[in-house]
C-alpha cells in the first residue's frame, strides 16, 4: 500500500487487493463508476462524433469493462500520486478514446490515403473568398511538404491535415503508437515552419525555442 494515501483511496486498495465478497462488492462498485464515467465521456465527445444512441452506449460499456480489467491488472502500479478514483478514471478515459479511434478506422469519413490539396486552406480557416490573400502561402506550404519532409512525415501530415484523420485512427492504420506518430508530426511541423520562415511566408518568433 503506497504511503500517505487518503482514506478513500486506501479503502479501495484494501478491498480490491483482498478476496471474497468484499472484493466482489468493490469490483461491482468500481465497474458501475467506470460505466458512469465512460457514458459521460462518450456523451461529452458525442456532438463531434458520428456515433450515437445504442452504438455510443455499447462503446461506453466496452470501455468500462476493458478499463476494469486493466485497473485490476495494474493496481500494483498505483503509487498514490493522486486519489485512486482519479487514477482509475484515467483508464476509462483512455479506453473511450481508443475505441473512438478504432470506430473511425473502421468507418473512415474519407480514404486515409486520399490527397486533396484543395482542403488545405480550409483546414487553417482560410476564407475561399479571399484566395488572392492566401494562394501563395498555401502553395509555398505544399512545396515545403513535398521538398522538406521525409516520406513518413509527408504521409502523416497528409493524413492528419489534408484528410482530417484523427491521430488515434492513423495510429491504428499505421500499426504505430500515439507517441510515435506525434513525434513524426512534431518533426514535420518544425521543418515546415523553418522553411516557411526562410522563404518569408511566416515571421521569426522569439517565443519559438526550437
Amino acid at each position, binding site marked *: 500500500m503506497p504511503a500517505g494515501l487518503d482514506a478513500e483511496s486506501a479503502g479501495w486498495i484494501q478491498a480490491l487487493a483482498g478476496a471474497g465478497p468484499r472484493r466482489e462488492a468493490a469490483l461491482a462498485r468500481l465497474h458501475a463508476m467506470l460505466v*458512469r*464515467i465512460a*457514458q*459521460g*465521456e462518450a*456523451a*461529452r*465527445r458525442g456532438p463531434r462524433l458520428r456515433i450515437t444512441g445504442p452504438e455510443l452506449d455499447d462503446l461506453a460499456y466496452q470501455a468500462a469493462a476493458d478499463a476494469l480489467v486493466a485497473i485490476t491488472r495494474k493496481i500494483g502500479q498505483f503509487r498514490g*500520486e*493522486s*486519489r485512486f478514483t*482519479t*487514477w482509475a*478514471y*484515467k483508464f*476509462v*478515459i*483512455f479506453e*473511450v*478514446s481508443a475505441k473512438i*479511434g478504432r470506430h473511425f478506422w473502421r468507418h473512415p469519413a474519407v480514404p486515409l490515403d486520399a490527397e486533396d490539396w484543395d482542403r488545405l*486552406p480550409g483546414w*487553417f*480557416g*482560410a*476564407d475561399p473568398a*479571399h484566395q488572392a*490573400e*492566401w494562394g501563395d*502561402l*498555401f502553395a509555398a*506550404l505544399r512545396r515545403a511538404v513535398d521538398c522538406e519532409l521525409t516520406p513518413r512525415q509527408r504521409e502523416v501530415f497528409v493524413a492528419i491535415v489534408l484528410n482530417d484523420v*484523427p*491521430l*488515434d485512427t492513423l495510429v491504428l492504420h499505421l500499426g504505430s*503508437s*500515439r*507517441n510515435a506518430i*506525434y*513525434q513524426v508530426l*512534431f518533426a514535420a*511541423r*518544425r521543418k*515546415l*515552419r523553418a522553411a*516557411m520562415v526562410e522563404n518569408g511566408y*511566416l*515571421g521569426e*518568433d522569439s*517565443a*519559438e*525555442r*526550437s
Partner: protein
Amino acid sequence: MNGRPALDRFLRTDPRDVGCDQAMEMLHVYAELVASGEPAQQRYPGIAAHLQACGPCGEDFQGLLAAIRGETR
C-alpha cells in the same frame, strides 16, 4: 481570414513538449492539480506544452478533468 495565424500556430513547436507517453503517464497527477487550482502548468511545463499541442492527449485531459469535477457524473 487568410489562414496565416492558424498555420503559424499549428507549425509552432515547443521543445519543452514531453510527448504523449510522458504526458499520459502523469495525466492523473496533472489533472488533479488543475482540478484543485494548483499551478500545474508551472510545475509540469512540459506536460502543459504537450496538452496544448496534441489534440488527442488534450482531449483525454479534458475528459479526465470533467470526470474529476463530476461534470460527467
